[in-house]
């Protein structure tokens, strides 16, 4: 194993391969920054050039793309409240409020630092866990996967804040929206009204852009001014973000490992990972009053996880030849071009290649972070420019990004429609994340429930892991209610916060508040 580790690095150190790795990172950053485009797009872009290329160089390039996208997609999420790709939706929740407070540089650098550590932990975890990954992957059958979708749905409670009923309604509306198109277990197209465009259902990318990007662009144009409502605060620079991340190092480690594990379970899809992590960090934090208003932990947790997950999704991809995410499906296709058959035999016969992948992942994460950090300072200045100069550019790019989904006018209609719904939901203060979560989990929940029933009738509910996850869901819901009660008093008084407030101050304030109440 050690010699394969060294061999992998030696193989990768070839100048051409390093150049291709770098090219992959550059493409990944470009498609990551552009809203609506993600790793899938980047990989599809280079696919035609892989025929005839050196296989290690080609793989390095693809891994470079996969590793760089979750770092770079933070830019639009933080700066404009626009999901840069499907993996950075949750970053908006706290990253964007920070940018509005003039702390964009802090949020970005904290995020990139978390991404770097997360990415490296993902690479190390892939190395360390790959011998044990098989039992992990095999432990999650249809019943367990169904329970995981329930776990995701029970996050809705905590992500609905002070509006639980509206949040749950939103989640149910998301489940309903997810039913459009082909049904997962029967040859039936539901609610398509004869439109071929609807046969595949709505696209998550367009839904996310519509719900978050369009309302933000519209409201910022309507309000005037710049994204940042205040000038850059004292010490609100990029070093502070790095310090934020280092101060929360255990949080980074915890969420990186969580990202790896959820990523390694095939069949869940990777777009739910950042929401699960966001819900997890909100759930486990003592002081929750600042989440949604610019709590740096709400940036660090999902960003650590969305980089580390690439280490996780590679496990089922390499071990079983089943894609852990849609971009990995393309990666599998590329392996086919190079004549590489993923599977257990790969670990036995071609461990060098596995380590080329791992090294590429680690190096690409470092490259991606360095480039993003270098870009973050000048790009963060955009938040101080009058927004009407930025708005048409962003609108144009969002429309262009949405159009790449199917290149059909339906994409544009859906974008505008979801934009109107998202704007309305924002105005009536109905939380939008539950709708997105419901949408992502809709097909999965239906599919795995039917499969569990067909496989085991109702006996599946007695499986130990099912009971464990079920208990976790109940604990999450009850814990959520209890914590909400406890922090309700402090949330009511901490109405106006001035952005420069430190978490520690808040926490102290909350303690004092509690003391005063009792």
């Amino acid at each position: 194993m050690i010699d394969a580790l060294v061999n992998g690095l030696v193989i990768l150190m070839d100048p051409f391969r390093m150049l291709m790795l770098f090219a992959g990172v550059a493409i990944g950053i470009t498609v990551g920054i552009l809203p609506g485009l993600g790793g899938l797009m980047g990989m599809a872009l280079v696919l035609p050039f892989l025929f005839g290329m050196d296989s290690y160089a080609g793989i390095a390039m693809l891994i470079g793309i996969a590793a760089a996208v979750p770092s770079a997609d933070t830019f639009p999420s933080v700066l404009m409240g626009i999901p840069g790709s499907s993996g950075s939706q949750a970053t908006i929740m706290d990253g964007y409020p920070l940018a509005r407070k003039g702390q964009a540089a802090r949020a970005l650098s904290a995020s990139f630092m978390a991404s770097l550590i997360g990415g490296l932990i993902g690479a190390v975890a892939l190395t360390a866990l790959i011998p044990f990954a098989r039992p992990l992957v095999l432990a999650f059958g249809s019943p367990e996967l169904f329970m995981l979708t329930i776990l995701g749905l029970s996050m809705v409670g905590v992500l609905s804040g002070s509006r639980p009923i509206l949040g749950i309604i939103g989640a149910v509306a998301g489940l309903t929206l997810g039913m459009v198109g082909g049904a997962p277990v029967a040859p039936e197209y539901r609610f398509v009204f004869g439109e071929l465009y609807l046969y595949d259902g709505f696209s998550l990318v367009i839904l996310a852009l519509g719900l978050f990007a369009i309302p933000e662009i519209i409201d910022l144009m309507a309000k005037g001014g710049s994204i940042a409502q205040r000038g850059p605060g004292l010490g609100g620079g990029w070093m502070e973000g790095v310090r934020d991340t280092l101060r929360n190092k255990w949080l980074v480690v915890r969420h990186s490992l969580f990202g790896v594990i959820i990523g390694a379970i095939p069949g869940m899809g990777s777009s739910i990972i950042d929401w699960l992590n966001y819900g997890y960090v909100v759930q486990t934090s003592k002081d929750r009053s600042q989440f949604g208003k610019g709590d740096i932990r709400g940036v660090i947790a999902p960003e650590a996880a969305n980089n580390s997950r690439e280490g996780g999704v590679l496990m089922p991809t390499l071990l079983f030849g089943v894609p852990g995410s849609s971009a990995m499906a393309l990666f599998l296709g590329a392996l086919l071009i190079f004549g590489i058959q993923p599977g257990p035999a790969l670990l036995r016969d071609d461990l060098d290649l596995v380590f080329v992948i791992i090294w590429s992942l680690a190096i690409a994460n470092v490259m991606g972070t360095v480039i993003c950090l270098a870009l973050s300072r000048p790009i963060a200045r955009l938040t101080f420019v009058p927004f009407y100069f930025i708005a048409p550019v962003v609108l144009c790019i969002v429309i262009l990004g949405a159009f790449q989904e199917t290149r059909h006018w339906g994409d544009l209609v859906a974008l505008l429609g979801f934009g109107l719904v998202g704007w309305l939901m924002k105005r009536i203060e109905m939380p939008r994340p539950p709708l997105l979560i419901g949408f992502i989990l809709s097909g999965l929940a239906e599919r795995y429930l039917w499969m569990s029933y067909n496989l085991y009738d109702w006996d599946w509910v007695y499986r130990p892991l099912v009971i464990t996850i079920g208990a976790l869901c109940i604990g999450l819901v009850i814990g959520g209610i209890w914590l909400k009660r406890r922090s309700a008093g402090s949330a009511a008084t901490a109405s106006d916060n001035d952005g420069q407030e430190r978490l520690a101050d808040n926490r102290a304030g909350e303690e004092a508040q509690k003391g005063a109440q009792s």
Partner: protein
Amino acid sequence: MKPNTLIAAGVAGMVGFAAFAAPAQADYYEGQTIRIIIPFSAGGGTDTFGRLIAQHLGNHIPGNPTVVAENVTGAGGLLGSNEFAERVEKDGMTLITASGHLNLRAFLGLEGLRLNLEELTPVVAGPMGHVTAFNTQTSGVSTFAELLESDVRITKGITDPVGLVESIVALEVFGVDYRAVPGYGGRGDTRVAFERGELVINSQSTPAFNARVQPLIDEGTAEVAYAIGFIDADGNPVRDPAAPDLPTLAEVYQEIHGEMPSGEAWEAYKVVANLVQNTRGTIWVHSDVPQEAHDALRQGVDAMVLDPEFIEAAGNILEGYDIISGSGLDQIKAELDAAPAEIVTWVQDLLTNNFEVSFDR
């Protein structure tokens, strides 16, 4: 997961020095661009096959046209297929890459699909076999004959029933009483579920079987039931060239029952297995394009398959099978035309009764 629809176009097969080496009389494809529609998302087996052909075909067609592969995804392949069937000029400038199962859908007349194989001519095709295995741990039996006798619940993962039809018809030949579990995303997902013990019986493409199911057999948790195998020009079953050691369905049947399989299921099997497996990747052109186009395409393919550069590139992608060109294509076309209507009806009824699939004709 929903297939993420995305279209990526790749320009392949550059024009070269066509301008300098202009032949005496103008070639049909001189200075033209051939567009190959791939109705699937980038990265899959059929997509890779289409891209391989797009990369090399232009160099060999007289006049060296540019060949562009374009993924037109959506509605499970309907969008791209219907565009090709109804909305392109029939001048030979647009081709389509179909998978074996898309061909089968067209053959059976699946609801909503406008592709009609009777109006198309194959340009080039690549075959792919399949192998069925069963889980010995979950079932508690070690041979397929015992499995047929036992009363364990034989679970079979269903992705898209039409996409698994050769394995479903094969189970019908044996009269296996299985429990269908629909909802799996693809054959890869069913393989993981099979390895986990959720599914008792599972069918994989032969390359996937060799790489990922064979280790389970070596480990003792699975056993081969039968290879689907191919049917030769005379209608006799032959072994899968990528798995020459595995007995075909007919051999296993003979061993268990002492006679060759017969009846409607067997007749349907012979048609379906060959259609799906011989045309795993197929490039089609409309039959009523000008004769010059047909000639030029065939000339191009015949030259391409002899090109050492193509052979090397194709080695990985065809995964142990030989590409089908020339007379092999004529045979595919002939088999399609000769398929009896009652067999089509039988397969349609099977899919409708067991899986509620609807057909247009």
